[in-house]
């Protein structure tokens, strides 16, 4: 879904929002401005038409009362009073000779009986052609009358109107963009707020809530819904904690009793076969216990428990000490341990869990990388993350099986024959995620390279 919409609009969110806002602005302002233009123009034309109508009435009244003489009187009046300074008037007889007016001759292309025609004509005594709106009349005497109005003004008005409207449109573009940016900023602020809380929740810190009051109506509703969801998640996690605690108790207590009884029985059983059988049971209890413990620890880490024990410690020192713990056993197995460590590396996290995760990875490297030459343990500073690398030169894991290998109980076929719970990688991943990081399995060519990413916590242990 989101992928498709992203393909349709290949821009980042802010640009997208600005463009959408701009499109809306144009969509609204262009028709409004066009309407304004049309109305103004129509109004202007109507005024010209009204003036021509009035003059036509006057002229025809003159004609009706006194024939051509009356008409000539009105024409002369118009010319004298300057009524036609901005207009045109011309009377010709049936043989097209000029009788009166301020235009030299009847334009050859002009027919009679037109109501409104725009033509450029030269007024008498002027070298400048003027655009007129003309009306022509056929008189009963056989003569023809032309009367017109200068519409140059309208052209000028049109031009400046268009200019003003385009100006308004140009002004609307930045306003649209700014409006878009402002809406975006408000939305973004709310989104960031939600995102921040969500990130903390994802890292297992359930104590945060959105402010329902300060967010405005719509965002307040979203905040309330999210808070209700958080309430529920917190409840579920608390339930999970109770369940794992009581499960731990209910499973461990009988195992403790079982062990007590086995040791008691071993005290009575003198013969070697009985002793061996009891010892085998004891070993299996230990194994069972390890699986239970690991499973519970993974579940707790996945639910974000363990943040309470975040502390400041030196990750560099930790990796050095793990290297030191494993060095002898690696060498005893005929392998070599190569250490690529940083110096001091202050970090905030759960030291015990990270130590356990790295020890699990080292155990795996020892178990499955036994035929290869060396095991590498390294720590790198990636800025936002710390990266712990454990790699071996063993058989590795095929790319398509890597995701599976990190799931709980998903031991790969070859590994089934060897001893182990199949929880090492799952535990390491849970620990990495508890620290806002992740676990990645890669090809070491040959062998397996495990990268444990741990996010730096911004020194934030204040509220736990």
């Amino acid at each position, binding site marked *: 879904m989101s992928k498709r919409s992203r393909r349709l609009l290949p821009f980042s969110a802010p640009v997208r929002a600005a463009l959408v806002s701009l499109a809306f602005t144009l969509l609204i302002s262009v028709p409004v401005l066009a309407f304004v233009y049309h109305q103004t123009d129509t109004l202007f034309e109507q005024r010209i038409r009204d003036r021509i109508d009035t003059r036509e009435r006057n002229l025809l009244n003159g004609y009706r009362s006194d024939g051509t003489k009356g008409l000539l009187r009105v024409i002369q009046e118009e010319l004298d009073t300057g009524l036609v300074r901005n207009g045109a008037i011309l009377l010709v007889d049936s043989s097209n000779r000029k009788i009166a007016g301020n235009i030299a001759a009847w334009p050859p292309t002009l027919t009679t009986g037109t109501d409104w025609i725009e033509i450029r004509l030269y007024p008498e005594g002027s070298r400048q052609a003027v655009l007129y709106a003309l009306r022509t009349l056929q008189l009963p005497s056989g003569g023809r009358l032309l009367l017109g109005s200068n519409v140059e003004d309208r052209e000028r008005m049109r031009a400046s109107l268009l200019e003003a409207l385009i100006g308004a449109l140009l002004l609307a573009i930045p306003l649209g963009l700014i409006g878009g940016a402002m809406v975006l900023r408000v939305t973004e602020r709310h989104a960031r707020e939600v995102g921040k809380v969500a990130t903390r929740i994802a890292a297992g810190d359930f104590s945060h809530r959105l402010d329902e009051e300060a967010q405005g109506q719509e965002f307040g509703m979203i905040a309330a819904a999210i808070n209700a969801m958080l309430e529920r998640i917190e409840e579920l996690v608390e339930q999970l904690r109770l369940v794992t*605690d009581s499960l*731990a*108790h209910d*499973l*461990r*207590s009988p*195992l*403790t*009793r*079982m*062990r*007590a*009884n086995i*040791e*008691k029985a071993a005290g009575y059983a003198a013969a070697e076969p009985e002793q061996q059988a009891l*010892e085998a049971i004891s070993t299996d*209890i230990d194994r069972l*216990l*390890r699986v239970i*413990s690991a499973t*519970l*620890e993974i579940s*707790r880490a996945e639910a974000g*428990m*363990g943040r*309470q*024990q975040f502390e400041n410690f030196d990750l560099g020192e930790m990796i050095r*000490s793990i290297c*030191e*713990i*494993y060095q*002898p*056993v690696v060498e*005893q197995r005929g392998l070599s341990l190569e250490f690529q460590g940083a110096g001091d590396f202050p970090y905030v996290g*759960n030291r*015990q*869990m990270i*130590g*356990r995760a790295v*020890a*699990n990875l*080292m*155990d795996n490297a*020892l*178990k499955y990388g036994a035929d290869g030459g060396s095991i590498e343990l390294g720590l790198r500073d990636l800025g936002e993350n710390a990266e712990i690398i454990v790699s071996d030169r063993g058989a590795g894991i095929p790319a398509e099986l890597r995701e599976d290998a990190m799931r709980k109980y998903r031991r790969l076929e070859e590994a089934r024959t060897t001893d*182990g719970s199949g929880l*090492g990688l799952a535990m390491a991943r849970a620990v990495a995620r508890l620290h806002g990081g992740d676990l990645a399995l890669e090809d070491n060519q040959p062998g397996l390279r495990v990268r444990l990413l741990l996010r730096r916590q911004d020194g934030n242990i204040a509220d736990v």
Partner: protein
Amino acid sequence: MSKKILVVEDDPTTAEYVANGLEQNGFIVDRASDGRDGLFHATDGNYAAIVLDRMLPGMDGLAVLSAIRAAGIQTPVIVLSALGSTDERVKGLKAGSDDYLPKPFAFSELLARIEALQRRGPASAQEVTTSLSCADLHMDLLTRRVERGSLRIDVQPREFRLLELLLRNKGQVVTRTMMLEEVWDYHFDPGTNVIDVHISRLRKKIDEGSDTPLLHTVRGVGYMLCEQA
């Protein structure tokens, strides 16, 4: 020194298991089956150590522990818990326990830890020692020199701490988990035999070429430094 131990545990099988084991090892054991009773005993008697279950009827184990400490009683306390996660351990230690042992445990592990706690004693009474020894093995804590007889032994820093732990608990069993906790400060059970390899290296350094080995393996439990096998 008093050899009286208080065991506060509601599960009768476990309580009997612990009590029998301790009695066989020469301790006198008092038993309490709930938190209230346990607290009453703790404030009353003069115990060498208290073994306290984490989950008790009536009063939570950690609440009992806090009450004991609030009353100014400094008796070493070792908490037994079915809550084995590392978080719970930290909670236990913060509440004032001296050690924390997840269930199920081997009795030998518990015994080793009780012995170690007794040896350590209350912090105030701990005298400042500058040297440790076992037979002809000597360790100078100031110059960090280790000698077997007249021969100087070269040990790495962690080996030094491992040997120091064994010397401080001379004649007592030190378990693998105790070593991992004390020397490296990790509280988990490594899947591989990492500790055994460290010990075999150390043993090579101090016992090789000697007629009387000092570092002994206690089968299924751990290691012990002592003169006679």
